[in-house]
């Protein structure tokens, strides 16, 4: 389904965020990518739909090498990949329904978008997904009136509106409280499994990853240092990924952590990323 070979990303600053990553997903499973902040998790996931341009290497999704695509074909490839963000990234001033339908933009022309006239099938699908993420009745609520957990549910539904062949999920719970985090993880895993969609999911919370993922990949300094089942994550492996630390309270415990809400990316940072 997805095969990443020798993926290297060097930012214009000269910093090498990925040093030849090899990774393949052959079955519909939820793959958690863990690793310390700055390990390159976001870079890896964003290279796949080319929000970040890979430097070298290949990323093959169902037979097409994403890294070789021109603008037009990239759009076609992107609509097969649903993305879920830490900051939800909804269109805040639009309603939940409009946010969901924006997941279909790759399929509808500009004229339909302009008139806000979406195909009936899409509207049906949107209502169904609203039910499945537990937001029935919220279709006309504006996104900026929702709580964090509710926004992330909209984010999940928007990604699934694309009926994607792959889900790319970047720290979906890092801005949420522990309880909501677990609910969101459960929804993601359930929907990914039910629709048979493989998912790459960045997460820095090891217990949360262990509890929900089918497979765990450990990333440290732009290199994959672990790839295995969640229960194979031992103290030695964690030391390899994160460095020396007392892991005895972490391994196997679904421990609560307080999380900080990170700053939004500015235009300059994004320009650099696109660089």
């Amino acid at each position, binding site marked *: 389904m997805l095969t990443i070979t020798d993926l290297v990303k060097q930012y214009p600053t000269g910093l090498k965020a990925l040093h030849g990553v090899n990774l393949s997903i052959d079955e519909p499973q939820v793959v958690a990518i863990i690793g310390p902040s700055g390990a390159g998790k976001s870079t890896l996931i964003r290279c796949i739909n080319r929000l970040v341009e890979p430097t070298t290497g290949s990323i093959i999704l169902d037979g097409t090498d994403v890294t070789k695509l021109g603008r037009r074909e990239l759009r076609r490839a992107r609509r097969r990949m649903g993305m879920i963000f830490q900051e939800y990234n909804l269109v805040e001033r639009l309603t939940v329904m409009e946010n969901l339908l924006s997941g279909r933009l790759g399929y509808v022309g500009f004229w339909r978008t302009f008139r806000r006239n979406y195909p009936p099938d899409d509207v049906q699908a949107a209502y169904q997904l609203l039910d499945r993420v537990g937001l029935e009745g919220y279709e006309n609520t504006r996104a900026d009136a929702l709580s964090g957990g509710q926004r992330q549910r909209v984010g999940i539904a928007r990604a699934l509106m*694309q009926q994607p062949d792959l889900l790319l999920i970047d720290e979906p719970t890092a801005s949420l409280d522990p309880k909501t985090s677990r609910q969101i993880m459960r929804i993601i895993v359930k929907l990914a499994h039910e629709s048979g969609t493989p998912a790459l999911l960045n997460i820095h919370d090891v217990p949360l990853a262990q509890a929900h993922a089918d497979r765990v990949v450990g990333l440290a300094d732009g290199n994959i240092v672990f790839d295995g089942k969640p229960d194979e994550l031992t103290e030695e492996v964690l030391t390899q990924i994160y460095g020396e630390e007392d892991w005895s309270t972490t391994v196997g415990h679904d421990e609560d952590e307080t999380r900080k809400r990170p700053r939004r990316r500015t235009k300059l940072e994004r320009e650099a990323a696109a660089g």
Partner: protein
Amino acid sequence: MTLEEHAKRYPEVWRKFNPRQSLIRYAWYIGIVFVAVWSIHQLEIPWIYFLDAHVQTADLLVRMFPPDWWFFLEVIDPLVETIHIATLGTAVTFVIAFPLAFLSARNTTLNNATWFIGRFILVTSRSVNTVVWGLLFVAIFGPGPIAGIWAIAARSIGFLGKLVAEAIEEIDEGTVEAIEATGASRLQVLWLGVLPQVLPVIWGTTVYRWDINIRESTVLGFVGGGGIGIILYSSINQFAWREVGIMLISILMVVILSEFISATIRKWIS
């Protein structure tokens, strides 16, 4: 740590600026005062006129009194024309400044050339006063409201375009990325990722500029741009102060009304 050790370790006084920084600050203050004094000196202001300024002002007010109330009927038409000039000028501004703002924002422009052209038009527009634009357009279209409308638009395009372009540059790029990630086209990204984020600024600034334009269009008649300025100018030249009084009162009322409308709409938008 004992108290004594503490006292040794940390200084007792704390100042925001070190002596060097203080010196630089005082140099700035002295510099500013110097520039002000120098400017006033250069202007060679005839101070003698200030001596009886209050007498002159009182005299002028007395001559405006009592206002020539019947003249109000003659003011209505030019006043309505003034409002039309401001409104149509703002409408023309909107149509032109809207695409221009997208060209002039770093994150939505097509390339460096389009960005430069956009910025150049905005700067040119803003660097010329409405009345000067009026003189230009009167030369082109001849005297009348058409010249006034274009003068208003020519000046306002830079105002609206600049503020909207700045708003576009400050949008949350995360939303844009999310829309791009769905496989949306460039136009769709602008329509759904960018536009909803800047729409309040676009409407708010347009209404605010309309309010400014009402005021600006009252003087356009001085240079032949139509509206109430024409008769205001001629009444002033004829020393018909009782007519001038009526016109000033009417303008004041219209301006207060437009400010109220503009403030209400902007409050309602945000």
